[in-house]
């Protein structure tokens, strides 16, 4: 699989490979984290979330890892498909107000 460094704005992945998208967050008090996928011309689509009392959560073909020590979040996509091409955003929230702070986003392009 391919991975980015701490954060890069683009990621090119071969179809069938695994993707890893990274995100650094700044608020140590954040206790809820979400990954969104945004395709061109559409609003963000919820992928997976994780609370600060967990360090890993799995969904369908996706896994989110949370490292609170270094304030780092990652999204792993297994067997990347052309339909996974999109911009991926991490978002964080502190407390119960549900207000989200979004990261800068990573554009994922899947090569056939």
């Amino acid at each position, binding site marked *: 699989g391919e991975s980015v460094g701490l954060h890069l704005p683009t990621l090119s992945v071969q179809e069938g490979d695994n993707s890893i998208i990274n995100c650094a967050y700044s608020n140590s008090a954040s206790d*809820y984290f*979400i990954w*969104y996928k945004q395709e061109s*011309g*559409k*609003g*963000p*689509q*919820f992928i997976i*979330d994780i609370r600060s009392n967990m360090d890993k959560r799995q969904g369908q073909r996706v896994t989110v890892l949370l490292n609170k020590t270094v304030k780092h979040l990652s999204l792993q996509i297994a067997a990347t498909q052309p339909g996974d091409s999109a911009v991926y*955003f991490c*978002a964080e929230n502190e407390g119960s*107000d*549900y*207000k*989200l*702070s*979004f*990261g*800068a*986003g990573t554009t994922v392009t899947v090569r056939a």
Partner: protein
Amino acid sequence: SAVISQKPSRDICQRGTSLTIQCQVDSQVTMMFWYRQQPGQSLTLIATANQGSEATYESGFVIDKFPISRPNLTFSTLTVSNMSPEDSSIYLCSALGKAPSYNEQFFGPGTRLTVL
């Protein structure tokens, strides 16, 4: 999940005019939000639309520029007032889901605004 629609989907406006964007949710939701996404950028929260009371604005956003209404639990509007080219952005509304997805925030498709 909640299905959210927005009107208009896009518009081109002259500077100095105002545009009202509508957001409709297919079910009653507790919380609704408005975000701005400038071209090629991430999303920034404008305000929380409160039902029956004034919206709560984030730093850098004021009611005179972005008045918001929320008359009921399924509908909200955002007005972009006295527009300038710097207001050219995508404006998105979102809503908090219902159980068991009550932590999930669902987004509308966005309104793409261009100010000339």
